[in-house]
Every structure is written in structure tokens, then in C-alpha cells.
């Protein structure tokens, strides 16, 4: 149990006040319009959304699962954190295409890419799913904070969940995305600095870099330094086949949109950047910082392993990085460390409060319920949606223990059977709304079969997750490819408008030819028909 001194409380209260103030200062900008409340007016230089990408993806539970995989698999466990690398290609491909579409959300993009009833059904589905997902993530991350506070101070779990999310809601309600992005910048700087300081402290406590290498050798654990220490091609719980599958999902996923659950948050950062170039660099550098941070953490966790090598209980060693900070930091710095944990937490909470509210406000309320709403009304609906998400996240968080396996299953749905359709919708003109919709529906049924039902009847063995991915991809394709070819392509007029605006990569030959025939790809003239949507 950690005991806080007066100096610690001064750090904590000071940091909280500065974070809230940073958000509230932008109250006047946030309330100006929908574009300000959800996209900061689309005018941000690349380093602001980049810091938000970094801050958002540094959540309270992140050091726990990074510690878990590194403690278990050594430095090679870093590949579990490499899913973020979808931004490598995305920054220069799907980010560029999405930024040019100017869509507020992925759901809106669906109606630009596809047309008619299918597109509207997709928009409704994706936006409803995202409102749910953001509430779920808020609950998930919130309860992680509850557990950290319980571990450190013995507080009841609900205290950490409710208190800090509610503090965060103050500036998100006041200033919307302006508050999120400005607080994220500050929180990102604090978090990065503290992660470095605590990690270095832990490394020094374990004998420094050379001490860690030497001690691992003496313990017969040198393999932990090898980033490619896999358990065989297909054998063991960390095979090369898993690594290659991860590389395909992460790296090639960058050609698509929505191939990673993080895409939906990044899409907001992409649209808030002031230009295509700023959008690309924000995604690339924000993610580079995430990956570098992970490698610093990995070394700190190796230090933790040297100090505490025989912990068998996962829930105990997953708290390793926190333990390094609270056990080894000098007096007076504990409050500083906890303030940084709050910063890490608030940056993630604020993003998902505003993101979920944007899907509700822009794609459900404004598009389906009240298309003639004024800007002032839209901002207020955004605030109400933010508040509802906050309250909903408390309920999700408190029942998270019971529903976690179900919700991980729901997340798996996002990754496996719809991974390829998420790429095809970007790169293949013939892929239509019905094909994409059918992939979601097929995946819902197939994933139940492959993950639970068929193994429980002994029809197929329980497969490792990477094999489930390939099987679900194959089974899904057997549905959505025929559906695509048995239904009509999107109207050429609709596709040409989308093409001229977004200039997608891939197989768009017939559409490009038609756009050229209509003279849409020649020169810029904002007043001519060539830019008409």
C-alpha cells in the first residue's frame, strides 16, 4: 500500500487543476460550431494530433498488458504491441484518402464511398457500433484505473473508476475536441517524461543496462534479450506463424480503414489536421512515439524480471511497472508519478468521450433525426451525448468482470472476418455496400461457430487465435465475394464523385477512366462542375 505525503498531494492536485484548466481555456472555441466541438475546426498542425495519438494510446491498462507480455515472452513480447504499426502504411495511404474525403467519421465515409440504401444501413450500423464501443472502452479503461487505485491505496474499485472519469468530463463537456487535444498535448508530454524517468529508475535499480544483461545470462535467461525468440514455426504459445499473421494484420491493414479498432479514434485526428500532409505526419509520428515508448517499457520490464524473476501469478507481474515506480522512486516523487498516471488515464477517457459523442451527434442525431439542427443545438447535443457516455461507462465498468470474455469476443469480430473487407472497400471499386454489410453479418455467425460452437461439439479443435483469423477470413470471403458479384456495383456517377475527391489507391480502373472522360481529373477549378460531388 502506498502512503501519500503532503508534497504528493500538491503534485496531484496541481496537475489535475492544470489539466482541467487547459481544457476549459478553450471553452469559447469549442462551442463555436460542430466542426470546433468535434474536430477543432480542422486546422491543427501535425504535432498536436500526433501528441493526441500518442497520449490516447497510453492508457492506464497499457503498462499492465505490455508488462504482462514482456515478463512472459522476454523482449520478443514487444511484437504483441506492434499492432499499432498499421499506421506505417496508413499514414501515407488510407490517411491521405480519408483526409481528402473530409468525412467527420468512418460512418460518414461509408456514405461517400457507397451509395443508396446499403450505404445508409452501413452508416447506421457503424455509428451505433461506435457509440457502444466507445462506452465499452471507457468502462474498460475506467475499471483499470479503479484497480490501480485499489492496488496502490486500497480504495474501493468504483472510486478510481468514477472520480477520474468525472474530472475528465469537465473539460470535454466544456470545450469538446479543443479541450481533448490541448489537454492531450500536455498529458502526452507529462506521460512520456514520467515513463522515461520511472523506467530509467527501474533499470538503474536492477544494475543498469549491463547489469540486466549480465544477470539474465547468469539466470540462464539470455533468450529474453532476443526480439525473435519464438517457440517454433507452429509449436508453443508464441510461434513464428503468429508473428507473421500479426505482421499481415498490422502492416497490410494500413491499406484499409477500420482494420484496427484504433482507426476510429485516429480518423478524428486525421480530419482535425489542417492539411493532408499534417494528417499523414500526425499519424506516423504519433505512432512512432507509441512504439518507442513500448521499447522503453520493455527494457524496464526486463529490469523488473531481474529484480523479481519468479512471479507466476499474471495479475501480480502485470503490475510490475507500477511497482518499479512506487517502490523505487524517491520520496516526494510518488505523487508526481501518480499525477502522470492520472494524465495517462485522462487522455484516453477524454478521447473516447468526445469520439462516441461525435458518432451519436453527427451520424445519428444530425443525419437521421434532425438534419436542420443549428450549430448551437448540435454542440449541446454533443454535450448531452458526452454525459450519457460517461454515465454508461460507469455501468459497463462495474460489470466488466462478468462481461469481459463476451466483449473480447465482440472486439475479435472487428478484427478477423471484416479485416479484408475493410481493405477491399478502399482498394477495389467493385466492392459494394452489400458485400461489406454481408461480411459483417457473416462474421457474426462464423466467429461464433469457429471460436465457440464447433470446438465445443468436437467438430474442430480449439484453434490458436492466429489460425482462427485465417479461417474466419476464408469463410467470410465465401460469403461476401459472391454477394458482391451477385449484386449491382455502386452507381458509376457516385463512384466517380468519390474518386475525384479522394483519389483512392488500388483497382479503380473503370472509375478512373470515366472520371477522365468527364474531365474531372484535369485542373483545379472550384467553380466548375469538376468538383461537384
Amino acid at each position, binding site marked *: 500500500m502506498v502512503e501519500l505525503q503532503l508534497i504528493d498531494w500538491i503534485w496531484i492536485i496541481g496537475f489535475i487543476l492544470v489539466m482541467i484548466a487547459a481544457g476549459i481555456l478553450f471553452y469559447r472555441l469549442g462551442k463555436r460550431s460542430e466542426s470546433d466541438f468535434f474536430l477543432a475546426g480542422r486546422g491543427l498542425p501535425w504535432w498536436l494530433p500526433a501528441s493526441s495519438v500518442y497520449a490516447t494510446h497510453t492508457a492506464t491498462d497499457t503498462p499492465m498488458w505490455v508488462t504482462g507480455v514482456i515478463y512472459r515472452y522476454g523482449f520478443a513480447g514487444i511484437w504483441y504491441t506492434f499492432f499499432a504499426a498499421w499506421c506505417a502504411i496508413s499514414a501515407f495511404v488510407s490517411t491521405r484518402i480519408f483526409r481528402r474525403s473530409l468525412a467527420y467519421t468512418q460512418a460518414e465515409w461509408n456514405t461517400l464511398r457507397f451509395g443508396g440504401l446499403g450505404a445508409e444501413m452501413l452508416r447506421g450500423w457503424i455509428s451505433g457500433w461506435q457509440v457502444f464501443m466507445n462506452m465499452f472502452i471507457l468502462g474498460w479503461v475506467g475499471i483499470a484505473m479503479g484497480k490501480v487505485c485499489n492496488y496502490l491505496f486500497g480504495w474501493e474499485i468504483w472510486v478510481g473508476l468514477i472520480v477520474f472519469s468525472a474530472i475528465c468530463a469537465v473539460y470535454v463537456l466544456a470545450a469538446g475536441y479543443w479541450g481533448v487535444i490541448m489537454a492531450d498535448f500536455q498529458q502526452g508530454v507529462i506521460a512520456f517524461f514520467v515513463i522515461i524517468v520511472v523506467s530509467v529508475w527501474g533499470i538503474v535499480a536492477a544494475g543498469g543496462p549491463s547489469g540486466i544483461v549480465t544477470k539474465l545470462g547468469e539466470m540462464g535467461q539470455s533468450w529474453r534479450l532476443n526480439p525473435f525468440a519464438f517457440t517454433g514455426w507452429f509449436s508453443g504459445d508464441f510461434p513464428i506463424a503468429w508473428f507473421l499473421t500479426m505482421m499481415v494484420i498490422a502492416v497490410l491493414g494500413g491499406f484499409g480503414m477500420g482494420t484496427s479498432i484504433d482507426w476510429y479514434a485516429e480518423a478524428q485526428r486525421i480530419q482535425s489536421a489542417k492539411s493532408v500532409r499534417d494528417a499523414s505526419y500526425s499519424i506516423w509520428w504519433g505512432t512512432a512515439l507509441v512504439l518507442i515508448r513500448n521499447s522503453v517499457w520493455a527494457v524496464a520490464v526486463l529490469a523488473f524480471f531481474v529484480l523479481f524473476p519468479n512471479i507466476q501469478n499474471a495479475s501480480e507481474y502485470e503490475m510490475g511497472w507500477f511497482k518499479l515506480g512506487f517502490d523505487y522512486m524517491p520520496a516526494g516523487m510518488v505523487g508526481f508519478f501518480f499525477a502522470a498516471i492520472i494524465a495517462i488515464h485522462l487522455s484516453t477517457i477524454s478521447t473516447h468521450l468526445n469520439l462516441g459523442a461525435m458518432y451519436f451527434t453527427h451520424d445519428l442525431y444530425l443525419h437521421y433525426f434532425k438534419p436542420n439542427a443549428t450549430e448551437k443545438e448540435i454542440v449541446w447535443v454533443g454535450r448531452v451525448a458526452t454525459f450519457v457516455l460517461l454515465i454508461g461507462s460507469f455501468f459497463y465498468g462495474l460489470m466488466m468482470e462478468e462481461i469481459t470474455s463476451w466483449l473480447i469476443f465482440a472486439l475479435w469480430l472487428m478484427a478477423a472476418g471484416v479485416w479484408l473487407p475493410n481493405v477491399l472497400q478502399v482498394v477495389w471499386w467493385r466492392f459494394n455496400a452489400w458485400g461489406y454489410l454481408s461480411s459483417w453479418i457473416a462474421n457474426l455467425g462464423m466467429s461464433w461457430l469457429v471460436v465457440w460452437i464447433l470446438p465445443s461439439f468436437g467438430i474442430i479443435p480449439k484453434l490458436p487465435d492466429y489460425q482462427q483469423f485465417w479461417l474466419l477470413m476464408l469463410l467470410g470471403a465465401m460469403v461476401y465475394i459472391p454477394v458482391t458479384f451477385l449484386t449491382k456495383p455502386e452507381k458509376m456517377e457516385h463512384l466517380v464523385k468519390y474518386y475525384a475527391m479522394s483519389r483512392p489507391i488500388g483497382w479503380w480502373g473503370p472509375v478512373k477512366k470515366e472520371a477522365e472522360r468527364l474531365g474531372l481529373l484535369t485542373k483545379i477549378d472550384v467553380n466548375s462542375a469538376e468538383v*461537384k*460531388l
Partner: protein
Amino acid sequence: MRLIKRNWKPGEADDWTKEDWYVIVLSPLNYILLTIGFGLSVLMLPIGFILLGAGIILTILMHWIIDPKLKAVSNEYEEKQHKYLEELEKKVRWEKENG
């Protein structure tokens, strides 16, 4: 034909060219080199410094290749953006498009 084009006229940069493909290959490689290289460098292992150095050089090269093109894409696109936004607003609010 030059291996890497760095002067882009308006309109040219909208097409996907070999410069984009160089970056599509380099970018994931840079992430791998920076991730492993940084971690192993913190451990003071020589291979770490080599990988990190390679990652930094290739990251600079990547930006050298793509930055002129991204600037050209951005400059041209921003001239159209205002008109596109107006049309998008109509679509969200179910207004009829003219013409």
C-alpha cells in the same frame, strides 16, 4: 526517368506513383528498426545502435522522398476543400444537390 521525383506540378501528385510505393515499403521497416533498435540501445547492445542508426537514416530518407509530394497534394487539395465541405454539409443534412 529519375529514380525519385521531387518537383511536383499541381495535379501530378494526386496520382499514386513509385515514390508512394518506396514509402509504403520503407515506413513499416522504419517502425521495426526504431522499435527494436531503441530497446536494444537502451540495453547498450551494439546491434541496437546499428539498428537504431539504420532506422533514423531510413526515416530521414522516407521523409525526403515523400515530403515534396505531400506538400503538392496538400496545396492542390486545399484549394478544393472549401467547395467539398459545402457539398458534404448538404449531404449530411439531406439537402438536395444542385445540378
